[in-house]
């Protein structure tokens, strides 16, 4: 007989181990789906998870995709840890890219060392501002931040669409929905000749260090963690809830804005409609898979970045749509959430004796 008991406290080792279980189950699940669709599962999985990173270029592409995911997830960890459900990072990324891109376009025909820092700063401020909307509405009007931040994603994407088709479209661009190319001074420096990996990765690493410091070494971090565990306790302790909500949203928005600016000044080099393959949503998976822990998030962003790359490789070799990456991303989160059950409940297999059954 199976008996389920609630645990009194979560075993830490298991807490950091279950993400690995989720990843293994996802790979198995992916194999099964490939098998059903008539592919050799081993071969298909090889195209997905090994081929993409079997050379230096592939490895650079992995880091390139992991950079925005890591940045956004770091920001989100502040919100999620304090029970603020910002799920509109995609919108904050887009708005950050719009503001940063706007500054880059101002300097489209100029060069200068000061331009890139200005563009990056503008992007961070843009994202921060956009995240403040759900935060302010939540703190002063009691609105649900999940719904507001989500709605704003579509507003920002439509704004970007309007700008690249209308007022910001390239005058010499034959009506393509894109802006001018940014000048070289607005572009992230490349780290290696011939590879696309750029200096934006240092922004992500800085964010990791910053978040570790803030979360584990400062009073603000303590407040965030306590609020996440129990809002009542936080209130009792006299924490100013409103300020904290605004701050975590601002951090989260700034990180997403930086990710947006990293994309347009890095691999893209201009604004157009498709600046992000839903990094803002996927980063939610990264934040969960990384257990909201700064170093866990680095690891998780690499894993999830691989699903993007794998989908591209599989599209070429197996002729399957690149949306399949999302099958893996969805499965990772499903399995992770499911395995969390083991954290909160003990599953005991009991061997009942006859006299025990009578009771």
């Amino acid at each position: 007989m199976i008996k389920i008991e609630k645990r009194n406290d979560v075993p830490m080792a298991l807490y950091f181990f279950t993400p690995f279980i989720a990843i293994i189950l996802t790979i198995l699940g992916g194999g099964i789906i490939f098998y059903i669709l008539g592919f050799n599962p081993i071969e298909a999985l090889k195209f997905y998870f090994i081929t993409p990173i079997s050379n230096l270029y592939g490895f650079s592409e992995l880091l390139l995709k992991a950079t925005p995911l890591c940045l956004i997830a770091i920001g989100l960890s502040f919100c999620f840890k304090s029970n603020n459900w910002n799920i509109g990072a995609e919108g904050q990324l887009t708005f950050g890219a719009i503001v940063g891109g706007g500054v880059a376009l101002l300097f489209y025909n100029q060069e200068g060392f000061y331009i890139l820092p200005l563009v990056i700063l503008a992007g961070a401020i843009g994202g921060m501002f956009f995240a403040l909307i759900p935060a302010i509405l939540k703190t002063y009007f009691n609105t649900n931040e999940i719904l507001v931040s989500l709605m704003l994603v579509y507003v920002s994407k439509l704004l970007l669409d309007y700008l690249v088709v209308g007022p910001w479209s390239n005058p010499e661009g034959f009506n393509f929905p894109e802006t001018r190319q940014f000048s070289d001074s607005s572009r992230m420096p490349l780290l290696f000749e011939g590879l696309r990996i750029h200096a934006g990765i240092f922004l992500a690493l800085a964010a990791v260090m910053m978040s570790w410091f803030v979360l584990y070494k400062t009073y603000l971090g303590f407040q965030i963690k306590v609020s996440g565990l129990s809002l009542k306790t936080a209130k009792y302790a006299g924490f100013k809830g409103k300020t904290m909500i605004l701050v975590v949203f601002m951090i989260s928005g700034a990180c997403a804005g930086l990710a947006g600016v990293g994309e347009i000044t890095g691999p893209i080099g201009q604004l157009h409609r498709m600046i992000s393959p839903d990094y803002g949503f996927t980063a939610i998976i990264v934040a969960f898979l990384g257990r909201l822990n700064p170093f866990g998030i680095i690891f998780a962003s690499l894993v999830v970045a691989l699903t993007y790359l794998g989908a591209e490789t599989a599209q070429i070799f197996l002729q399957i749509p690149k949306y399949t990456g999302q099958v893996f991303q969805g499965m990772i989160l499903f399995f992770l959430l499911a395995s969390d059950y083991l954290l909160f409940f003990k599953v005991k297999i009991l061997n009942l004796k006859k006299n025990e059954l009578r009771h």
Partner: protein
Amino acid sequence: MSLDISFIGILIGSIMASSVPLILAASGELITERSGVLNLGVEGMMIIGAISGFALMVISDNLFIAIIGSMLSGVIISLIFGFLTQSLLTNHVATGLALTIFGIGLSAMLGKNYVGIPGKEFPVLFSGLKESIPFFGPILFGHSVVLYFAFALPFLTNYFLKKTKLGLVVRAVGDSPVSASNQGINVILVRYSCILYGGAMCGLAGAYLSLIYTPQWIENMTAGRGWIALALVVFATWSPIKVLIGALIFGGITILQLHMQAIGFRIPVQFLSALPYLMTIIVLVVISRDSRKIKLNTPTSLGRIFYKEK
């Protein structure tokens, strides 16, 4: 003048057609949310309904099987969400997002061989009356059976929630799961049923798109309608009749865009497209500002995990 009036009739008819997927998905999600469950997987369930409806139509050449199958596939995919949130007590927001992401990916994978296959004409009712009566003809007649069902659904939903005992049970579970449970109601079972029902309606909404509205399969063809449906439930402050009104407004905005583009009107289409989202935010602010109002309308336990010690 008569030409103008008949044009307006046709316009209203097309607004109604474009609002159908929103009504179906939002009515389903409304029941789910009324039971206290926030399922953000609407978009994912719709797209799965769209591909399975279309694929079944191609395989079986039978539209009835396709429609029923799309609803069943919505039920199956929502069962994942139900199992995770109700049996394994996972977070509703994260699970719903995973469902949407998973659904979009899976639908593209399943639909690989169906891209570019032409759809089949879906039978419409009373097509003779549509032509013969000016103005009212195109509004009332010549639609698919799914459209008539969609327009009846909000009224049925309203009746169910307000006048039936089961409806009361659903509302009780959403407002106060603990006391409902103490009254001997099986909260988990009620929530499971509401989730599966929501899945069926979202599946049907997707099939309406791929079988009737634009009869073909295109990757990601729901194009954010699931998110609009989610917004619509909030916009309607969880009231079925207001879902119908809201769906006509949001559907109207979509149709208006097409016509304004054609006329060359000056307001950028993107601003019109953004309107449903902005209006939803405004409604949220208005209803949330007053704590009494939000208590009246919002299912109190929305999105919260219910666990009963055994």
